[in-house]
């Protein structure tokens, strides 16, 4: 009963909102519709509608996937201080971190689904009814760790919210083991995603032991950067109490991670270019162009410039403490890492091909539309989950034990906002 009412109250909460909330929701749905329409076209005609080719067989979709796994993993940068260092200020906002992780994993999975040629055969991967090539295939590993991470985060968030909804304190004894597991699991999702690339001996650009550390380091830049922006937004827009000390901690985390990231980039550049050889070809293509082909060169230098500006702001204390400058640094970091770990990592792996062919790739309008659609789904998911979560955390949504009051309430509400509540109620009765 409590569970049923929980979902009813959550739906009711999502149905309530100021004009700007609805404008935002409608805006997101519009983008989702446009992306969905393009995806239907892709399903009908095949992936031929994208710019991908036999030479560059993964493109914009998998680039976004890679970036988003990092964002998901970076949620631990809130979880670790909240539970391991027992920081009350961060524990207040840790649910937003979990929500970010859930959303990012969901988007990452959607990016894989739009990338595969036969989404109708996805069940082939499910053990027992299908056949999963585990443990040999790193992609099988990735499916397992990503679904596991999604379930872990959903489970923890749900337990916390449902306890608070019932007016109970969540029992740390119950969920701490899962928190600890989730911390290790978070590292594993991005490590496995890096191994997905570095497993390929035939692609020297990826086949490199530094890849996984680089992935983790850059994730701990982009994740906290996004979290800082989101925390400020919820503080401003819904007045959710976010203490400045939480943001400051994230900013420090991000500063250190960005310094490490840039150091790793430097190490790669040195190895590739001090004594340039055949295996440097992809790096040469990325940074300087190869045999006249240089589509990614402006992108990677933009990314590096953004990251260098960001790290400069972050390293100088008076600058970092100015809200505007911190926000600029966050945006620059997110965009910079998105380029560097997205297109900047995936595409050069294919150029030149293992047989030395240079065939360039940039996403076309269809890929951009479908990707924007997935980002909109992510923003929508985050908005809805965060809205419900914050309402519960602030005590707006509470389970009321008085059944009669409940039943009286149900009748009234059905009249008030029929669409939102009737459907789930009926199925519940």
């Amino acid at each position, binding site marked *: 009963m409590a569970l049923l009412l929980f979902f009813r109250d959550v739906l009711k909460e999502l149905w309530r909102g100021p004009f700007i909330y609805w404008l935002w929701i409608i805006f997101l749905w519009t983008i989702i519709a446009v992306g969905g329409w393009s995806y239907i076209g892709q399903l009908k*005609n*095949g*992936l*031929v509608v*994208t710019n*991908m*080719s*036999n*030479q560059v*067989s*993964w493109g914009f979709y998998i680039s976004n996937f890679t970036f988003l796994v990092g964002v998901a993993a970076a949620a631990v940068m809130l979880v670790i201080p909240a539970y391991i260092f027992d920081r009350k200020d961060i524990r207040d906002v840790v649910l937003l971190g979990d929500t970010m992780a859930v959303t990012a994993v969901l988007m990452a999975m959607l990016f*894989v689904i739009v*990338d*595969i*040629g*036969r*989404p*109708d*055969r*996805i069940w*082939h*991967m499910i053990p*027992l*009814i*299908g*056949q*999963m*090539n585990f443990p*040999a*295939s*790193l*992609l*099988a590993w990735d*499916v397992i760790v990503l679904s596991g991470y999604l379930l872990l985060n959903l489970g923890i968030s749900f337990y916390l919210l449902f306890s608070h909804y019932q007016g109970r304190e969540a029992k740390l004894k119950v969920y701490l083991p899962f928190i600890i597991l989730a911390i290790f699991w978070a590292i594993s999702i991005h490590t496995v995603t890096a191994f*997905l690339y570095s*497993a*390929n*001996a*035939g*692609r020297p650009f990826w086949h490199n032991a530094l890849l996984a550390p680089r992935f983790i380091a850059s994730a701990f830049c982009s994740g906290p950067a996004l979290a800082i922006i989101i925390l400020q937004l919820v503080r401003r827009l819904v007045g959710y109490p976010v203490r400045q000390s939480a943001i400051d901690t994230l900013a420090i985390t991000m500063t250190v991670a960005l310094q490490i990231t840039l150091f790793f980039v430097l190490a790669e550049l040195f190895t590739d270019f001090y004594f340039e050889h*055949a295996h440097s*070809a992809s790096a040469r293509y990325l940074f300087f162009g*190869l*045999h006249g082909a240089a589509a990614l060169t402006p992108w990677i230098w933009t990314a590096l410039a953004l990251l260098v500006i960001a790290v400069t702001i972050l390293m100088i204390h008076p600058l970092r403490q100015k809200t505007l400058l911190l926000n600029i640094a966050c945006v620059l970091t997110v965009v910079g890492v998105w380029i560097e770990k997205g297109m900047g990592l995936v595409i050069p*792996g*294919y150029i*030149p*091909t*293992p*047989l*030395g*062919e*240079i065939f360039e790739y940039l996403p076309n309008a269809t890929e951009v539309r479908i990707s924007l659609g997935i980002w909109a789904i992510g923003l929508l998911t985050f908005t809805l989950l965060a809205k419900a979560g914050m309402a519960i955390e602030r005590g707006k949504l509470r389970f009321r034990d008085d059944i009669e009051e409940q039943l009286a309430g149900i009748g009234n509400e059905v009249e008030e906002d029929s669409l939102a509540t009737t459907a789930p109620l009926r199925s519940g009765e």
Partner: protein
Amino acid sequence: MANKQQTEKMSEAIDHYRRTFLKRLGITSAAAVSATSAHGAWGGKTLGDTFADFFQQHYQRMTPEELRQTLRRIERKVQRQYGASINCTETPPLDGVVFGYALNISKCKGYRDCVEACATENNLAADIRYIHVLELDKGSRNLELADRYYDHETVPVQGKYYLPVQCMQCDNPPCVKACPVGATWKEPDGIVVVDYDWCIGCRYCMSACPYSARFFNWTRPDLPADRINPNTNFLGNRPRPVGVVEKCHFCTQRTRKGQQPACQEACPTGARIFGNLLDPNSEIRYVLENKAVFRLKEDLGTEPKFWYFSDR
């Protein structure tokens, strides 16, 4: 009357696949799929075939009966989609055979007859060629400088040499390791094959392959009915569906019946030597034992079963 029989056969097929699927799920449900809609046509496709296509089992786990039905269904599908009648068979690997290939680069003149013969034999889509002939400057093997789309009046061109590349049928194939669903594997005769109906189209194998030997069907192959080779097999040259990966399979439809692959037969210079590595009297064994051979990217440890050698 015929229609009714057909309907019955189709509902039988539906029921069969439904049952095996549920069995795999571990569910035993008595609810029957309504047979009344079985003669509905989905673009000429019967509901029975639609169901059976969707639930089709992995090749290695099909019962002989399932395989037989699948082969007939594939023939029907090609008839429906391309208006061509083909014969699709199963060609199991031969005992005591592991295939290998050797190519004499001093004999290859870059005619690319192998490329075209392969395309015709294997029902390749216009944008897919299993064999790439790389034109290289003499004195270098820098593949980045190779011209793979050369278009001269006559070949060979002075100062160039030619290096045909195709799937090396690695003995330690990274593509097989990469596949998340086990849709590609190494057969007992050493050929790496793909179950086109099990592949989910993730293209991870294409990233894993160090020889660019795997190709994706970005759209449904556009095959003119009169150009379709009707002698096909399940793991080889049958027309491929959209959204799946394919590759050279040493012409399993031919070589497992004792014939030479199409590329070997088409080569006018005799540069290609194909045969059984386990047969000590085979020509390929002679080459391996008496010529200075090399393999492309041997350092990667994929153990290719495709060797190059030179007379000079």
